[in-house]
């Protein structure tokens, strides 16, 4: 079984309670309609249960969000783009940034034309923000 971390448990609880609350509230509405009695016993029970579940669900989702906000966001990936010195050669290579890389650093020979390879750009990949 997949090991659940604390925030996943919170998320699951929140989802579970929101589903339960929807079911209960739905039952409450159905009971009111079927008997045409506003002071219906079942209906009020279901309503109370639904509201309770909703509150619990909101509480867990709040805890979940707080836990997430306290976590350090994962660093985005930095890419190093390498080009060939030779203007006629369009050799291009992209790899992940390694420490010691800098723009216009010479990094060996071109496999296509044996020209000099250099780092042309270093930039952050735009990852979908995990906020």
């Amino acid at each position, binding site marked *: 079984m997949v090991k659940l971390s604390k925030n996943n448990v919170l998320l699951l609880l929140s989802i579970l309670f929101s589903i339960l609350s929807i079911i209960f509230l739905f039952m409450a509405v159905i009971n009111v309609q079927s008997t045409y009695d506003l*002071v219906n*016993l*079942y209906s*009020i*029970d279901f309503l*109370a*249960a639904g509201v309770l579940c909703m509150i619990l669900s909101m509480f867990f989702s709040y805890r979940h969000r*707080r836990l997430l*906000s*306290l976590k*350090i*966001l994962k*660093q*985005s990936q*930095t890419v190093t783009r390498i080009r060939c010195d030779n203007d006629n050669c369009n050799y291009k290579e992209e790899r992940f*940034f390694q*420490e*010691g*890389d*800098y*723009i*216009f*650093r010479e990094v060996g020979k071109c496999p296509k034309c044996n020209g000099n390879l250099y780092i042309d*750009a*270093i*930039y*952050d990949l*735009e990852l979908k923000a995990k906020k």
Partner: protein
Amino acid sequence: MSHKTLMNLVFTNVHNIFNDSTSLYLLQLTFFLIYAFILAFFNQRLQTYLWLREAESSLKRLQILASKSKEIVIKKINEVGKPNFDPSPSIESFLDFFVIEPTSLDPYGIVNKFRHILDVRSERFESFIKQIAPNVPQNYIPNLEGLMETAIGLNELYRLVRHYFILGKKTKNMLFIMQLQMNLPLIMRYAEAYFSATHAFSSGKPIGDGVGALVASKLMRGKQVKRITNKTIFSEFEYKDRKLIVIKAEGPGAEIGEIDDAIERIINMYGGRVSRIIMIDAALKLEGEKTGQIAEGVGVAIGGTGVEKFKIEEIATKYKIPLDALIIKMSLEEAITTMKKDVIEAADDAVKRVLNIIDTRTSQGDIVVIVGVGNTMGIL
């Protein structure tokens, strides 16, 4: 009552009250009075409480960011400096380092005073780095300085927010708490940006602010490069019968160079016969503007304390040299974190714009000085 559950038992009494119309009325009246009371007297208390809770969670996050950045600094210093002692206590105490700006009561000569203090500051930083990281290679010192600076910035933000938070909690003064809560979104944005900057500085990646230096570097690539002042380089070459002199900080360490001194020296070298100065720098965009948008104007495009700006303006005025400014727009976060692709692409466009300015606004035989301003970390 056929359906007997526990809940029914609990609610039976409530239902009995509802059945009586007089008690129902009384019940509603009581609820109304309670709500009115809460709204009238506890409204502010409740609001203050909510704001404080919000500030507290931000404060927690700030604390985490500040301590993580400190950890990164210590780890990096241990890694590259290899000190034979534990540098943490010295780093801890250096986090409170501050600079007192000169008084402006008597503004005469304030720029020189400011400059002097800034020189002392950078000297102090360098000697501190050398002291805690004795084996650090010379070209790595500026990166560690930058790293130290981001940690100091985060620490300062944390202490500031904590101050207002505790003040608000102690005094229960709505004004303090409101001020804090209203400013928090911006403060947190800065804090996150500073924290990402820590990562950039610890691995020596180019940052958005370096786009000016990148443009200069693209122009001087393949040409002979000489050092002109401490930490500043220049390259001199012919372009369409004009003499171009490109100046930038010396890379790939996190240097910003002594741009003002370099410009002064070049101009004096040619006896003031420079016909144009073109400066390229990163600038803060307004929200809604596109990152990497290039704008053209006149004046000295250089940020910071204004000390360098003053000196460049003075020498340009002395010889009546026109100043062109080319700025590349980005947000504060983008300026101090690893370069975005938009900015890299903007640098190529900026090179074309600079050459275009030279083609259209200078004539043959002119001497043109081009200055790439910014932190040249990760850019040769």
